[in-house]
């Protein structure tokens, strides 16, 4: 990654040498993908923070569902959207829940996730550096206890449970 970005790392970072306008994290749409995303973001935050400050880091949004009815295929990127799509398309639909990027054909991946004309990206920004610091410490630090407390406290907010 360091070679690819071209900006070096840590204190030696030099944003003028950046080789890409957007660095887009694209992981599987399942919980392991979410985990990998947190690890990559931690790496960026700890060693390449200017990339975040400069607005270079993005997160790709692969679809979560493909709804097909006959020859029609519609992608849904969130659960509410899936409900809307299902309501529109009526009864005879089949739903595919994407767990990994590998489930998609190259052209599907292009049209749903990568095509600049139609894709959705999330630009990673930083709101409060102190809060972020604390959070990274809790989640990625060596101490287990704070991590467990965090999980217990926020368990009810979980979005996706992989079952």
């Amino acid at each position, binding site marked *: 990654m360091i070679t690819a970005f071209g900006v070096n790392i840590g204190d030696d970072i030099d944003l003028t040498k950046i080789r890409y306008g957007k660095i887009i994290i694209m992981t599987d749409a399942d919980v392991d993908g979410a985990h990998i995303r947190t690890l990559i973001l931690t790496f960026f935050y700890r060693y390449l923070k200017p990339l975040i400050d400069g607005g270079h880091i993005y997160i790709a949004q692969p679809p979560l569902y493909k709804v097909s009815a006959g020859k029609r295929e519609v992608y849904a990127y969130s659960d509410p959207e899936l409900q809307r799509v299902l309501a529109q398309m009526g009864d005879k639909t089949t739903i*595919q829940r994407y767990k990994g990027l590998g489930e998609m054909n190259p052209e599907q991946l292009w049209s749903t996730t990568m095509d600049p004309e139609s894709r959705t990206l999330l630009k990673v920004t930083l709101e409060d550096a102190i809060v972020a610091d604390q959070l990274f410490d809790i*989640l990625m630090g060596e101490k287990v206890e704070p991590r467990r407390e965090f999980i217990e406290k926020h368990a009810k907010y979980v979005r*996706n449970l992989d079952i």
Partner: protein
Amino acid sequence: MSDIVNDDEILETENIDSIETDDNQGISNIYIEDEIKASYLDYSMSVIVSRALPDVRDGLKPVHRRILFAMNEMGMTYDKAYKKSARIVGEVLGKYHPHGDTAVYHAMVRMAQNFNYRYMLIQGHGNFGSVDGDSAAAMRYTEARMAKITTGLLDDIDKNTIDFAKNFDETLEEPKVLPAKLPNLLLNGAAGIAVGMATNIPPHNLCELVDAIQCLIENPEASIEDLYEHLKGPDFPTGGIINGMGGILEAYKTGRGKIRVRAKAEIIEKDQGSKQTIIVHELPYQVNKARLIENIAELAKDKKITGISDLRDESDRDGMRIVIEIKRGENAEVVLNTLFKFTDMEVTFGIILLALVKNIPRVLNLKEILHYYLEHRFEVITRRTQFELNKCEARAHILEGFRIALDHIEQVIKTIRASKDAQEAKERLIEQFKFSDIQAKAILEMRLQRLTNMERNKIDEEYAFLMTEIIRLKEILANPTMIYGIISKEIVEIKEQFGDNRRTEIQADIKEINLEDLIKDEPVIVTLTNGGYIKRMPIEQYRTQKRGGRGSNATSTLEDDFVENMYLASNHDTLLIFTNLGKVFNIKVYEIPTVGKNARGKLVQNLIQMGEDEKVRAIIQTREYSELEQLLFVTRKGIVKKTALNLYKNINRSGIRAITLKEDDDLVNVLKLEGDCEVVLGTKLGFAIRFNSSDVSHTGRTASGVIGIKLRNSDGVVGSIKVDEGTSILTIAEKGIGKRTKVDNYLLQKRSGKGVINLKITENSGTVVAIKSCMDDDEVMIITKSGTLIRTAVKNIRSIGRATQGVRIMNVTDDCVTSMVKVDEVKVDEIEENETI
């Protein structure tokens, strides 16, 4: 918004829809804090509730449950032929578990390994790995099927006993939990690391576990101690010995506890007991044998464990056998004890009884685990009974229809023949006879052979049977004690079928065998040479040597090396070794190597973790650490410190601080005092001070002390002595000039004075190198820079007054004296006296 402390609503912002879209097409902003938090929660909660932790009811993690369920669906029971593992893995991946194939295969393999599962759930065929850490052959080679005992987990799964959920692509159903007649959580245990929490449940013995469950059924108020009466502790598939029961009860009571598990080994004597061999038959749970042997070999090579002459692994398909040959004359017990201490021959198993209760991870005590098991079984039996009742009632309903139809068979036939199609026939039958839809349909499908007399009787019999069955089932449902009776009966059946003897022995706390119990507490001579070699000699040997007349030097040494300190000590004594840097190390006398009379011994640096440039300045011998005993530290800069000896009782391998030294200062000597007494410090420039140690107040271990003698510029303390009655002070200076003076000639002062003249320093004499206390019959050794040494009797040095120039003791030209030591010999008389005590 995303304040860590008060963030009950943050995650709502997580929803992409609610984030304002900026001008850049298709791009929204997301705060890294929110993203990290939400993603991490998704991951960690998923790992906790559906990956790494077992369910309290069936003791299975999702992957295991899916493997067993898939195998059950494939009909791969113990009485069928083995099937390729790859087929099972493929089935599990494709239908229920969208993760890595290796993870699934590993999970399956573990369930078939007799060293991992106390009661294996899978029967493997082929190479399923070994306790040496070899992995199983690839899944295209191995074959598997379920073990017989596994039916105890799956029985009744098709009787609506448990809930099912949609699989990952919502095309199939998979069980959320298995009916689990087998109390699998405690039976086979579980280990798993989730996020922020982990579980480590040891396996148990089936018979004991069933007894404990029955105890709880019979007495729901049973205490954990009551259950512990039956369930004695973990029972590992690999046997071994659990050392100490405290940790077991603690774990059963609180859900957490530590137990020590050690290997089972025996000691065999050879050659009339002069040579011993340790044979290891069983290892602690989850210890890799190959790695353990490597580790032992390495420790033996590095001399961390001594006494092993050979090490072989003679294990084969029939069992484990590690052979450790002990060197002739070494004590196998001692070696075994060291092996327990330094290798995985003994390990600590940290029990954490964490499992999912209604999808929430909880640390449970023994009673809670059994309670949830029983609650689950209660539900399963209830649902099964209800299922059977429904079935009986449905069948009875049809039979009732048959009976009416047979009673009116002519009319029924007529009605059917008169109908134009099946639908009409059914409607007419319902109309005429008040049949239900189901009954009418069954009658229409009835075969003509039912019309025989015998069939009629059969229907009546079956109906009668169903009636009694219905009554029985209804009674069960209305009566919880009957349900508990069934639970009890079913586990007793399992116990009778699969129960076996405990494999892991449980021993009351063997205190870590005290090495001292194995080593005879006998007097020995310890010597330390000027060159830093230390050794220990049985007193016999020393005496023979002396009688043999080979001089009075008891240790053969390198050229230019000689014994500087000699102690009469006992094997169980401790030596405190103080260094110039103010650190102290300890060593048990028995830890000092005993070597032949002509061997040098071992460098002190190799026995204790002394730094390379660190020098031994004093050795104090002790055993009791009595409260009266004190240490008086003396430093180069004239500082003294008095500290109780018992503060030096606990010293770790890397040594501890004995005194805090100022910069450029170093420790010169340490005196052991029994109660206060007078001491004398002597300096380089020829001064000396005599004061009572009561002038120095007691301080803590790491204190830095107070002034003992006020030094003139460039002066420094070179020695200190304890004053006994009749003591003389022997002083030696660089150029071989020295003197002997009675202590009485030195005025008793308060500490912190400048002292009095001890030796008048002249160009002739050079500066003072050392002072020693001596009696008339002592001998001293004087050493020069170039290595010359002379030995002389103290009485040859004339006793003279205090402030004098001294006399020539040694001729040194172009050389200088560097040190003087007392030939600190132990007199044989003294030894014999000690022995008789």
